[in-house]
């Protein structure tokens, strides 16, 4: 399988969330993933981009960078912002933890990324930004019907 690379940069505007997840999904289609794999990737990307919009930049507008690397049948994806950073990553990735409980936030974003992708890591520095890295096997699987 040919290796391939994609880099997307866009403003942290909420209306770009659908664009970002659909663009990544369209890039992955060439590897013929199952529908459930594609759906997992879209959801994880949506969560990562939403975090950049809501938490990293808040009311400000900044740049979100998504890089996708397809190596063989494995997708490596990173979502990077240059926003405020996460104070306590260990706490932030816990299920149902949210810094904005009044906004009907579920606090499940990182848990979904972690569960839906094969590998997941967060690296963040206060005042400098956050990088979320994720990996997903793209090989077609037998679907559970």
């Amino acid at each position, binding site marked *: 399988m040919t290796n391939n690379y994609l880099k997307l940069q866009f403003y942290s505007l*909420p209306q770009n969330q659908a664009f970002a997840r659909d663009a990544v999904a369209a890039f992955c289609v060439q590897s013929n993933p199952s529908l459930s794999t594609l759906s*997992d990737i879209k959801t994880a990307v*949506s969560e990562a981009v*939403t975090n950049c919009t809501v938490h990293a930049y808040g009311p400000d507008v900044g740049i979100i960078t998504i890089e996708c690397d397809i190596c063989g049948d494995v997708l490596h994806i990173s979502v990077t912002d240059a926003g405020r950073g996460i104070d306590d990553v260990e706490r932030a990735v816990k299920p149902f933890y949210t810094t904005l409980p009044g906004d*009907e936030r*579920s606090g499940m974003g990182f848990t979904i990324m972690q569960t839906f992708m094969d590998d997941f890591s967060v690296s963040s520095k206060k005042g400098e930004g956050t990088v979320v890295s994720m990996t997903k096997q793209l090989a077609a699987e037998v679907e559970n019907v």
Partner: protein
Amino acid sequence: MKIQTARSGSRLVIKLCGEMDEYSAAQVRTACDDIIDRNKTAGSIVIDLADVAFMDSTGIGFLIGRYKKAGKMGIKLAVQSPNFAADKVLSLAGIYTLIPKVN
């Protein structure tokens, strides 16, 4: 997102169509709350997710918000027909222990 409603006796069905994410949620929240406020006599509300093509964790917050609102008014809330992707998100969060999935 588009929203359709159907009332049959004390049962109100709110059908959502489109993609639910951070961007679309605010409008859907307001519209659903307006619908709930106009149906105070409803005994139960079913959120129909059959035509929700995409839903991330925003959907969890949305459903819990409507569950709380309906609960304060003495109205039961349920969901029906989530696609496999939305079902995975909602199952992971344990939503169905609060808001049952009905057929």
